[in-house]
């Protein structure tokens, strides 16, 4: 060995301890050697082809993870607008477009017009349009904008809920109606904003109306005919709630007969709500569907003493019969409108050394739960954002501990309750990365002042009573939101990108370790899944409350798409500087904005006046 080599070796040995942390940091930045934070894995059953996006959540487990990797952290800086599509409506745009083969399907907010776009042509190119014609009466019954949170594709049909309580199926090739089923009555204050979900040959749909004193339910329809197979209520006797001897809730306080009646004052369950307007997940192996129920009605808790089962809860049910396997109530006797409807992401992960089959649920009450999805046992309950309504969580009983100072009494103003009614996370769904083992969630950072007013039930009017002002946790104009990365096995936040405005968009992850999300003031961003470094941002024409997707076009290019059309709960920010007007445009991006262009022979050429058809001499 010569002196140069030995000198080099000496230097390497001396410097190695210094470079190890540096190596670890750069490993975080590049992702090639870093290992998963949580060890969580997902089953991607229910997804279409790699380049498709065939359901709102991409797969039954609700991972919103795409295997595409043509767009990478290296080239994402070159994302540019490829094409746009304006759908002419004026309400918030919350659904994700679907891509099946060469066709994109989307449904507008009220009036719920469906479009099929031919992606093989210069886009947008409308293949067909279906006008569902819902009743405008439903607009005035929708608490939170005349939105639709998504639509489903299955068996050659586009299936979706209309605001006025119909579920409709449209032939995906022809745009003609196949079936339409009336599910409830607008005169009872019921609307439907939920995304229909298809699994196991059935369409699962639920109602909205937590603020309208409705009777909440989730139903299953036959995929071929639209005929109702079963309906499970969230309130009422066990026969309505579809609970029998096979029901096995994990915690004792949820065991007993007819708790959907007994945990209410007499007959109050009839207007107790528990509407199901969030996403549904499906475990194909155990044949179980998972979904949540809304807040109880009225939104004045002193009028309904009791735990108010089964509101603000989650159910695991048999998709064939609708019978409940287990239930868990996140916020017993909810006093702040903490709906339990947020999605369940189905993940398997090691918890304290033991492999568990879990679901992860970020609740409106600001606890992120990791729950054994076979039994309903809470394994992890950690706060993913700031809250002051509870002082802790009792793991033995599975109940949160309420701070008495935040319990509202009618006519008495409470200055600061966090989170507000809409939670620190509303319905906007997170995404999972199998590489990092993390969930990426759009969140809020807000509080409310609250005064309750006692209310009477008048059918078709709000059964509500909450008077609120919302503001950010750190004053009226601090950061109202953010995007955070969460380790569900340890109940820990890994990093957070603070945002001036609420983040109420869906999130997606890709195999190249990119995370995409949008802010309610119109920023669409691509972020490194390991570090949270923002790699690309583009300001769109309106705030984003929709769900992005990524897909492969017929031109073998990867595209990323999201609708910009602010509305829904994001409107609590409308007085803030920087808030944008409403919009209705789908934005589709690609590297360099490259996309399918018209062939040269289709481009018109200028002609002499005598040749032009508009010339007087031609008439």
């Amino acid at each position, binding site marked *: 060995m010569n002196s140069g080599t030995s000198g080099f070796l000496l230097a390497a040995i001396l410097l190695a301890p210094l470079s190890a942390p540096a190596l670890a940091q750069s490993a975080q930045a590049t992702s090639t050697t870093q290992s998963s934070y949580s060890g969580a894995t997902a089953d991607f059953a229910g997804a279409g082809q790699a380049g498709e996006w065939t359901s709102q959540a991409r797969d039954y487990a609700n991972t919103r993870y795409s295997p595409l990797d043509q767009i990478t952290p290296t080239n994402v800086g070159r994302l540019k607008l490829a094409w746009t599509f304006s759908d002419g409506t004026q309400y918030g745009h919350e659904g994700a477009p679907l891509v099946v083969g060469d066709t994109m399907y989307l449904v507008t907010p009220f009036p719920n017009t469906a479009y099929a776009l031919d992606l093989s042509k210069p886009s947008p190119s409308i293949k067909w349009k279906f006008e569902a014609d819902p009743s405008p009466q439903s607009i*005035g019954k929708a608490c939170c904008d005349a939105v639709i949170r998504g639509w489903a594709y299955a068996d050659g049909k586009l299936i979706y809920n209309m605001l006025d309580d119909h579920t409709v199926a449209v032939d995906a090739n022809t745009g003609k109606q196949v079936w339409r089923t009336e599910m409830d009555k607008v005169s009872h204050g019921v609307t439907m904003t939920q995304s229909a979900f298809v699994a196991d040959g059935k369409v699962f749909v639920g109602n909205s109306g937590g603020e309208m004193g409705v009777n909440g339910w989730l139903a299953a329809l036959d995929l071929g005919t639209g005929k109702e197979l079963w309906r499970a209520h969230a309130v009422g006797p066990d026969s309505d709630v579809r609970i029998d001897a096979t029901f096995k809730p994990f915690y004792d306080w949820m065991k007993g007969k007819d708790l959907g009646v007994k945990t209410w004052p007499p007959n109050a369950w009839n207007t107790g709500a528990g509407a199901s307007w969030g996403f549904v997940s499906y475990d194909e192996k155990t044949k179980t569907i998972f979904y949540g129920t809304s807040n109880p009605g009225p939104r004045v808790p002193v009028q309904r003493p009791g735990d108010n089962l089964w509101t603000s809860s989650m159910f695991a049910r048999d998709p064939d019969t609708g019978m409940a396997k287990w239930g868990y109530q996140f916020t017993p006797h909810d006093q702040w409108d903490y709906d339990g409807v947020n999605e369940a992401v189905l993940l398997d992960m090691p918890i304290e050394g033991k492999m568990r089959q879990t679901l992860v649920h970020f609740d409106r009450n600001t606890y992120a739960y990791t729950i054994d999805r076979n039994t309903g046992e809470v394994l992890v309950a950690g706060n993913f954002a700031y809250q002051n309504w509870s002082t802790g969580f009792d793991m033995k009983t599975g109940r949160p501990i309420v701070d008495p100072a935040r319990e509202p009494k009618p006519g008495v103003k409470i200055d600061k309750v966090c989170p507000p009614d809409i939670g620190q996370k509303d319905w906007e769904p997170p995404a999972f990365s199998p590489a990092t083992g993390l969930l990426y969630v759009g969140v809020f950072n807000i509080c409310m002042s609250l005064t309750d007013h006692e209310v009477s039930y008048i059918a078709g009017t*709000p059964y*509500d009573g909450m008077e609120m002002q919302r503001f950010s946790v750190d004053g009226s104009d601090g950061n109202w939101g953010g995007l955070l990365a969460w380790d569900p096995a340890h109940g820990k936040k890994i990093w957070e990108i603070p945002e001036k405005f609420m983040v109420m968009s869906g999130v997606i992850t890709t195999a190249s370790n990119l995370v995409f999300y949008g802010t309610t003031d119109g920023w669409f961003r691509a972020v490194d899944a390991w570090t949270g470094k923002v790699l690309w941002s583009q300001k769109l024409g309106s705030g984003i409350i929709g769900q992005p997707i990524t897909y492969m076009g017929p031109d073998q290019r990867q595209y990323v798409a999201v609708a910009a059309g602010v509305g829904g709960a994001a409107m609590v920010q409308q007085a803030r500087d920087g808030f944008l007007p409403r919009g209705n445009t789908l934005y589709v991006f690609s590297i360099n904005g490259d996309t399918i262009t018209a062939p040269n022979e289709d481009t018109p050429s200028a002609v002499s006046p005598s040749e032009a058809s508009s010339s007087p001499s031609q008439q």
Partner: protein
Amino acid sequence: MSIIRVAVGAVILVILAVGVTAWWVTTRAQTDARVAVAWPEGVAAAVPQGLSAGEAPPITVSIDNPLANDPNAAEEGKKLFSQMNCAGCHGYDAKGGMGPDLTDIEWRYGGRPIDIFKSIYEGRAQGMPAWGNALPTAPIWQLVAYIQSLGGTFAPSAEGQPQQAVNQGLGAQAGQKQ
């Protein structure tokens, strides 16, 4: 045998006919009574049902809130605004939510007292309930008085002046305050 059957059938038919006629007459009378109370003689026909810019015949009748000189009307209306769940849709501050803002000068269906009365009484296409089915007219005028007190409504048309229907509902520049 068959004659008795025919006779019984005829009696039943007569009873039914009398019953149906009685029901029809009674409900007509109730509707007429309501209309007579809601609008003075002849006015119902003169008030246009909806906005049809330029097409509605100009009216020369002024319909003020009959409770205009009642100092308690707005206060009673404010209580009703909460009790009847108006606040649930229009906000406890009436600045809107599920339903429109009632404090600004933009009125979809007209912003004069009679227009607001009709919107509450008849209900409207985008989900406003038809309170005429549930409330007598006095509380509805009290609600109108409360809304008038919020400052965004238009004056009743002046006596003898044609009402320009086209100015209504467009956030007209001259938002006339009470």
